């Protein structure tokens, strides 16, 4: 299992959400983060170096089975892309175990819904 953490533009959230659901991701969590970077040339606006400490982004966190990693990355990459500076990043983090609280399932089984059909 891996955790995919994607930091994306707020305005791209709906697109990414749709892309993920289409890519058969069952569930993901997200929350607001802020980004800070070095002031770079391209970031000067009207003569004022723009204080980057206030860039709002959404962090999407999805835990997926190994076989779905690339599919998920692709979905996010495509949907979050604008081509302008600030499109964000995707990180892949190892997960050692996962537990579904309701059923007690562990490992991969906790991620997909065996009972999906009922």
């Amino acid at each position: 299992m891996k955790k995919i953490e994607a930091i994306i533009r707020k305005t791209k959230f709906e697109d990414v959400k749709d892309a993920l659901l289409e890519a058969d991701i069952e569930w993901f969590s997200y929350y607001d983060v802020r980004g800070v970077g070095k002031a770079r040339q391209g970031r000067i606006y009207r003569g004022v170096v723009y204080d980057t400490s206030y860039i709002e982004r959404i962090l999407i966190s999805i835990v997926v089975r190994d076989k779905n990693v690339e599919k998920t990355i692709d979905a996010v990459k495509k949907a979050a892309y604008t081509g302008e500076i600030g499109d964000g990043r995707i990180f892949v983090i190892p997960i050692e175990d996962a537990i579904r609280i309701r059923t007690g399932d562990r490992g991969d089984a906790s991620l997909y819904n065996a009972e999906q059909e009922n």
Partner: protein
Amino acid sequence: MDRIIRYIMGKRLWLGFTGLLFAGSAFAQDSVAAKSATETSSISSLDTVWVLLAAMLVFWMQPGFALVEAGFTRTKNTANILMKNFVDFLIGTVLFWFVGFGIMFGAGDFMGMPNLFSTDFYASSNIPTEAFLIFQTVFCATAATIVSGAMAERTKFSMYITYSIIITAIVYPISGHWTWGGGWLSQLGFHDFAGSTIVHSVGGWIALIGAAILGPRVGKYGKDGKSRAIPGHNLTIAALGVFILWLGWFGFNPGSQLAAEGSENAIAISHVFLTTNIAACLGGIAAITVSWLKYGKPSLSLTLNGILAGFVGVTAGCDAVSPVGAAMIGLICGTVMIFSVEFIDKVLKIDDPVGASSVHGVCGFLGTLLTGVFAVDGGLLYGGGFHMLGIQLLGAVTVGAWAAGSGFVIFTVLNKVHGLRVPARIEEEGLDIYEHGESAYN
């Protein structure tokens, strides 16, 4: 307000502005409370208190609009929208005092003369001229502030200031002159007691044109052209804003009687108070009911709009209709508003984040017409025939055309010359940081 007679006693081009530059001499011409004995004899203190109270309440609508607009838009543009709601009032006060008041209430067929800070040309009747000026100022600011909501989240702040100046100084006072200023429409008998057309639909139509020319916010319409919800960031303050507007409307409408003394006036203001409240409540009830039937759930944000729709609708005829008539106007406006919001959003694909064009434009128009239907004295349903309704239609259409036309010219020119809209990146990151260097929440 309809009932004011404005015989212009004389105009002097008082060089207020030069006065500012040559303060010593100019100030010597001022005099505090300089009224001749004949003028003051007819002043009613109770009327003055009533009008000042009403002016306070209409001023109080500014935070109402500010909160509704802020609540219905996103966090990243909150400082910007608040700033706009301050700035239009700041500018409005100065410009209406400087030129608007003269254009609106001076003598003239199409418009009066700019007064350049002097109020001497105006003959006060039951209240001091300065009370009348402040009351008219807060009305003017209301018209201007309506526009900011529809154009929220993507307009350059400098452009906002520019068009606010034009609206406050020219567009509003001119159509105001036609009606409350004693101009041609008022002579025809056009009835717009407190401004469904003159204030609200003027603001609403300009808002609609502005939003159309600006184009929708990034992300508002999907690739398939489907409209998407961009929910407001804080419905609590939006709701508070509506309550504030509600209180303000008790000044807006009953205050437009401009008098309280004598039992006739006492009865009139009580009546207007009652009809205003009833229409608002039925506007809200209509919106709840329709949204429940249409979407399966009663929506708070539509209820807020419905209440405002009821208010806007009854503003023209609040003195002329019965409570039952007011209820009907509220019901109709609250219902139509929901379909109008949907139509503008999904069919016209104009992105109006707060629904200003539906609430103020459409319902202001409608309310003006409905006055011709429900007016106890002259309305269609009371056997008055189509005469009054016709004049109401004429007024609503000409003033609407004036507002929309002016708006079209202003926005097209500004867009060509300088560009109305911020660059995509600024829209994305929020106007607060790029335009004001601050964010509202930290």
